[in-house]
């Protein structure tokens, strides 16, 4: 037997309705799951005039991994780790390998992924396409800052190995380029060395927005990982009350004696799955108000050096499978913006607006970004970033978000494309001043616009 499917075997396409993690705006496309690089190239040739987009684990909230009427390549079967240097921590992984898999494989050898978003259920290809960031952005930058090279399948069917040194234009157009320059087949990633799989966490409560902003400005320099959870339904003098968690991977010496025997143990897995029967009106400002109150109260006022697992610290929601179903069939959206540090007033105004509107955001997260990278459409830049979740049936949501758009725009801020599902295309070039450069690079490698997504159509990205 050969070690892969024979050349004349080709996986069938399935006409499938796809949406993002927010379960809004579904469209129907032909989905195919290639098993090998050759099949990815073969699928590319079988495209219709509606083009192609690659899809990973579908964790983008909106429509970047959808291509209505066209072809969608489900990349999750390209899930092999091709090479690993366990001295240097350099890993070559196919695009469909998830961060979950990388963590599971390499934590026992003393390496953690360089950057992880709030879920580890994202693929390497998706992490590059959205140039994802995590709690360590101020210290380590975003995902593509740790990608040494990648193999990119281009529109003409050729494969190019792209590095930031040899082909900076194409590399940085692909980093955060939402899959519109080509299909990432594999990438070489520099992992982060760790001594143990436990995170030493310091937790503090802040009574209001001013307090949390002052605390965060101070903790950035001291900790590699920091993030604050914010109660955006609190009002008055409690406005912006938060729980700040800061962490570092524990050193071997930090562990109690009985844990030192197996310091790099990692346990993933999930606890439960949300059934698809939740009524859409369940997350409302009353239930969320209760939830937020509880979350705030249960957090310790001040606690130092608590040892937490990777899952508990980085990916608490991953314990619950299909948690997006908790918002019911009408779905939800996430709104993430960044405004520069010197525009702190805009952040305050945004929190005030959301609180006044009583919009029930359950997972409001505040974080400080460090310097951005060269990615043309990469989201992070120095400043405050706030992330909100809203059920789409929230009354007055469209207007509230338009007001927030205005606030973000007039303060040199922008929205994150991996979260976007409703921004105004007219705002795009003001939020991303390098959009035209991106289009120029893309026009060179994909003159016919083969790579296209619903989001690209909606925002006129290509």
């Amino acid at each position: 037997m050969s070690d892969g499917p024979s050349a004349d075997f080709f996986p069938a396409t399935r006409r499938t309705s796809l949406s993002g993690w927010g379960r809004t705006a579904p469209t129907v496309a032909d989905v195919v799951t290639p098993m090998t690089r050759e099949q990815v190239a073969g699928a590319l040739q079988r495209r219709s005039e509606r083009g192609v987009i690659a899809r990973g684990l579908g964790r983008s909230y909106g429509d970047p991994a959808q291509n209505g009427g066209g072809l969608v390549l489900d990349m999750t079967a390209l899930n092999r780790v091709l090479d690993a240097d366990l001295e240097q921590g350099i890993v070559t992984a196919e695009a469909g390998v998830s961060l979950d898999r990388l963590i599971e494989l390499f934590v026992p050898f003393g390496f953690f992924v360089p950057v992880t978003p709030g879920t580890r259920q994202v693929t390497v290809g998706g992490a590059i396409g959205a140039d994802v960031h995590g709690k360590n952005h101020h210290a380590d930058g975003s995902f593509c800052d740790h990608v040494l090279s990648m193999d990119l399948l281009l529109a003409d069917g050729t494969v190019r190995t792209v590095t930031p040194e040899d082909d900076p234009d194409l590399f940085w157009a692909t980093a955060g380029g939402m899959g519109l320059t080509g299909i990432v087949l594999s990438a070489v990633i520099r992992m982060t060395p760790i001594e143990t799989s436990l995170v030493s966490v310091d937790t503090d409560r802040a009574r209001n927005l001013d307090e949390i902003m002052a605390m965060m400005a101070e903790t950035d320099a001291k900790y590699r990982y920091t993030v604050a959870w914010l109660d955006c339904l609190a009002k008055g003098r409690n406005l912006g009350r938060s729980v700040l968690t800061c962490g570092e991977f524990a050193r071997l010496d930090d562990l109690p004696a009985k844990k030192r025997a197996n310091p790099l143990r990692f346990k993933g897995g999930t606890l439960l799955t949300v059934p698809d029967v939740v009524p859409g009106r369940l997350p409302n400002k009353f239930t969320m108000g209760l939830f937020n109150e509880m979350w705030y109260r249960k957090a310790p006022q001040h606690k130092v050096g608590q040892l937490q697992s990777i899952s508990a610290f980085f990916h608490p929601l991953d314990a619950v499978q299909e948690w997006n179903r908790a918002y019911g069939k009408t779905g939800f959206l996430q709104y993430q913006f960044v405004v520069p540090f010197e525009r702190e007033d805009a952040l305050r105004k945004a929190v005030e607006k959301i609180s006044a509107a009583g919009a029930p955001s359950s997972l409001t997260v505040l974080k400080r970004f460090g310097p951005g990278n060269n990615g043309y459409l990469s989201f992070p830049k120095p400043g405050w970033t706030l992330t909100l979740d809203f059920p789409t049936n929230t009354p007055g949501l469209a207007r509230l978000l338009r007001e927030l758009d205005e606030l973000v725009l007039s303060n040199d801020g922008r929205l994150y494309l991996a979260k976007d599902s409703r921004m105004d295309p007219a705002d795009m070039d003001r939020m991303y001043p390098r959009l035209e450069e991106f289009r120029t690079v893309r026009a060179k490698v994909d003159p016919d616009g083969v790579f296209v997504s619903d989001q690209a159509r909606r925002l006129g990205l290509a």
Partner: protein
Amino acid sequence: MKDALGAPQSLLILGGTSEIALHTARKLVDERVRRVVLAGRPSDALDKAAEGLRRQGANVEVVAFDAAEPDTHEKVIEGVFAEGDIDVVLLAFGVLGDQESDEQDPVAAAKVAQVNYVGGVSAGLASVKALRRQGHGSLAVISSVAAERARKANFIYGSSKAGLDAFAQGLADKVHGTGVHVMVVRPGFVKTKMTEGMPDGPMATTPDVVADGIVKGLRKRATTVWVPGQLRYVFSVLRHVPRPIFRKLPI
């Protein structure tokens, strides 16, 4: 593309001078619609409608389209889709005819059926073909409460809308799962130029209210929209009134 809150970006109106459709267009342009295509018989009214929407900030194209000529429908509609995706097609053309005189003029009566039903069938199918190819989008078909049960006072118009209504219901089920959404809109008596000079029917409504119903229905991907909403319950009773009584009702 429609966004996460159900707001479309592009709109094709078949029957570009329909008051209901133009009210709908204005509301959608206020949201996210930027491209509007008005398809209709060339006229000053059509150009004026386009101008109004342009002033509101939309990019408006006007294309020649005659509902009474089904042979031409596919070509016109294909041409519109070739220029870019259409998120919503509003099938809004229709004629009322004149029941009294049409009863004496079979050719004129057939014209009502030709436009409202035959034209609706070909334009509806051509639209859905293009929508299916792009894997998303809505077709809203403006029917009428007159389609619900034939009345002696307007059965020529009513039967043409009944045909269109049944066609659209079947089409909606046929395309389920293809990403395409077909919605039937059943307004009651609407005060427009079409009904000018007629006495207001019971529960009379305005094009603006009907447009609100359409916008809301599109957002929720409704299959049927009644305007005003109470008509749904009125007709669920009227549908079952025995013929000898129904015949005598002053409706």
